């Protein structure tokens, strides 16, 4: 017996809780949202009393598509999970597959992966800053920030051939070298961004109208961030020193100095509001510049891939058996890819993606608590949501979408565990223990 919660019942229940409230739906199509997600706010005057968040409009079935393709095709599919984190998903999946297939990656490739990843962080944070300014009605800043974002895209194009979707990582290394003759141009761009940092601080952190709109707005305390498993800048702005690059270093990060940054690193008290999220992203742009500079200095010579020939790589992957988990600190937070390979199969048996926005959905609830309608766009934007990347499940039954609540999900997972357990006892487990 599956209990269905009808939306009407829920509305009635909430109306009873707040009789003077009126319901304001935001989304799935609304100018404040760049992607489809539905917020239902119960508003009293201008204050938000309750919020219900319903994702599920953007599901594309990418994981399913992945299990119908060979692993190299899956890599390019992973790149297209997100247009902004277009290096983060490939970086996570290559780690997962390399772990599963036992591939060693040459050190130079590790450094190149870091360089491209950090360049992406710069462009992603600048893009976010522009969007945030637009949500505040400050279009001048939007146009300014997006203009100064162009050079980093030009550099990415120079290094990889593409502004977005770089197609650089491959299992076992990278597809293109960063030759020394490209260093000067890259260093010029880094110098350019260094020179802009003061401007950013002035425009974003010292502007009275931005401060008025972001200070004390959308507060997420560090306890809430911790218990709701916030990731990325959202968690760090609440004072949690949590960063995959620091906690579980991968690629070249163990050799580099990476530290999770919180507003304290700028000498500010941590308040966990939208302003702090701007501070953290600004600090991370500076950190990324430093990391790339360090990479350019320390990058060793040598091979860039363990498998120069794609056919050999495919053959190796086809033989591989096992599972792997890849984690990468994307600009928005931790992205996790899980993959399971079976010998003789070109396609992965299982491919599971967890985008950072998924972890940052729940923190929205405390952030929206008792805020005003005017704060909705900036609070929603403050976690840098990427809905498309996050959507994993959509259940549609007889043309009607339905919501599964915690109890139902628990019941389903118990049932699945039982099913798997009975299968395991019948035959010898093919997995590697645990």
């Amino acid at each position, binding site marked *: 017996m599956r209990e269905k919660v009808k939306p009407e019942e829920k509305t009635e229940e909430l109306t009873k809780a707040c009789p003077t409230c*009126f*319901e*304001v*739906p935001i989304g799935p199509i*609304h*100018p*404040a949202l760049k992607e489809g997600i539905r917020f239902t706010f119960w*508003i009293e005057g*201008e204050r938000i009393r309750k919020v219900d968040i319903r994702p599920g409009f953007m599901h594309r079935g990418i994981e399913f598509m992945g299990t119908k393709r060979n692993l190299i095709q899956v890599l390019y599919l992973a790149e297209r999970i997100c247009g902004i984190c277009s290096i983060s998903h490939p970086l996570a999946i290559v780690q997962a597959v390399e772990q599963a297939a036992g591939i060693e990656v040459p050190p130079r490739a590790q450094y190149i992966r870091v360089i491209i990843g950090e360049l992406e962080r710069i462009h992603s944070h600048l893009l976010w800053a522009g969007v945030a*300014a*637009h*949500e*505040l*009605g*400050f*279009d*001048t*800043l939007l*146009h*300014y920030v997006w*203009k100064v974002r162009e050079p980093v895209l030009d550099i990415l194009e120079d290094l990889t051939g593409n502004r977005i979707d770089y197609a650089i990582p491959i299992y076992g290394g990278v597809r293109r070298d960063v030759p020394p003759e490209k260093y000067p141009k890259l260093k010029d761009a880094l110098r350019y961004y260094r020179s802009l940092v003061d401007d950013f601080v002035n425009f974003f952190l010292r*502007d009275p*109208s*931005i401060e*008025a*709109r972001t200070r004390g707005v959308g507060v997420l305390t560090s306890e809430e961030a911790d218990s709701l498993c916030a990731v990325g800048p959202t968690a760090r702005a609440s004072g949690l020193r949590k960063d995959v690059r620091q906690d579980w270093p991968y690629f070249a990060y163990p050799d580099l100095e990476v530290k999770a940054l919180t507003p304290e690193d700028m000498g500010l008290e941590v308040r966990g509001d939208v302003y702090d999220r701007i501070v953290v992203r600004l600090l991370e742009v500076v950190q990324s510049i430093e990391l790339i500079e360090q990479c350019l200095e320390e990058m060793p010579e040598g091979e860039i891939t363990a498998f120069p020939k794609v056919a050999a790589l495919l053959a190796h992957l086809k033989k591989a058996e096992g599972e792997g988990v890849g984690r990468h600190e994307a600009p928005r937070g931790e992205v996790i890819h899980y993959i399971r390979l079976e010998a003789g199969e070109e396609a992965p048996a299982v491919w599971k993606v967890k985008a950072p926005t998924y972890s940052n959905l729940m923190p929205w609830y405390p952030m929206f608590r008792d805020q*005003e*309608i*005017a*704060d*909705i*766009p900036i609070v929603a934007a403050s976690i840098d949501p990427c809905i498309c990347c996050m959507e994993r499940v959509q259940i549609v039954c007889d043309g009607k979408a339905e919501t599964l609540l915690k109890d139902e999900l628990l019941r389903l997972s118990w049932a699945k565990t039982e099913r798997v357990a009975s299968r395991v006892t019948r035959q010898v487990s093919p997995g590697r223990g645990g």
Partner: protein
Amino acid sequence: MSGLNALWQAILVLVGGGVVGFLYKGLDRKLAARLQGRIGPPLRQPVLDVIKLLLKENIVPRTAIPWLFQAAPFLAFITAVTALLYLPIGSLAPVLHGYGDLVLLLYLLAIPALAMAMGGFASGSPYAVVGAQREIVMMMSYEFPLAIAAVGIAWRLATLGIGPSFSLATIAANPLWGLVGPLGWIGLLFLFVALLAVTPAELSKIPFDIPEAETEIAGGLFVEYSGVNLALFYLADVIKTLVIAGLVVALFIPYGLAVPLGITGVGGQVLDILFFLVKLFGVVFFAVTVVRVAFARLKVDQVVRLYLLPTTLLALAGLLLLVLDKVVMGG
């Protein structure tokens, strides 16, 4: 005969006002774009926008109150246009001179905003309702400093024995700056700043565009409007921009070029009108274009606090200084 004359004048002012209004709207958009580092639309873009809107379907939502929903844009447009006829242009007296004064003009300026709020409440969308509430709250906060500025000037003129002091023609013909002492001069400056601060809110422009607030409430008041109705609101906004700027000019910078340069007759009047248009443009550029480029949108409580405290206090201080000035100067 004079009735016919007034009709011709009215038609001339309305057509001229429309042309200048569209031109300034285009300039506003172009200059704002240049200030933001964009290329911006061509100058004729506002005209094209209105033509497009006039060709579009006029949709009345099922949840709306149809007659109120349809009446609001007409009311806004008609009052804005009427207000234009009460405006002294250069050295010319207003077309409807003698049929209403500054107080009437202030009311005419309030009606388009009220009409927008009514339309918003009548359109049956939660976004529009929120927008309408915000419009009303904002009006309540900025009307007080606006009224103080207008009344302060008229009162000081009356104490100087110049009348009828509430007539805009009188105010425009007798610039106060030269008639008051130093205290009054500072007082006038305060009132001028207060009036300039009110201007972007009157026109619902950033940072005071909260009734529309595209990213928050998707256009707010206008969210359900389309076609001819939306075009009328757009036109009302175009004309209202001129009226507000014209009011600022008439109250505080009514100087002409013809008298100091010694040009008389038609040539002098034309020169004054051109100079008036330049002054209008100055007010629109500095009080609307630059401000909307330089700030983020405020929240409704911040707007109210801004107008009820600093702006009202500034205007009251200006009025007080004018009173003191009268005491010192002995009227």
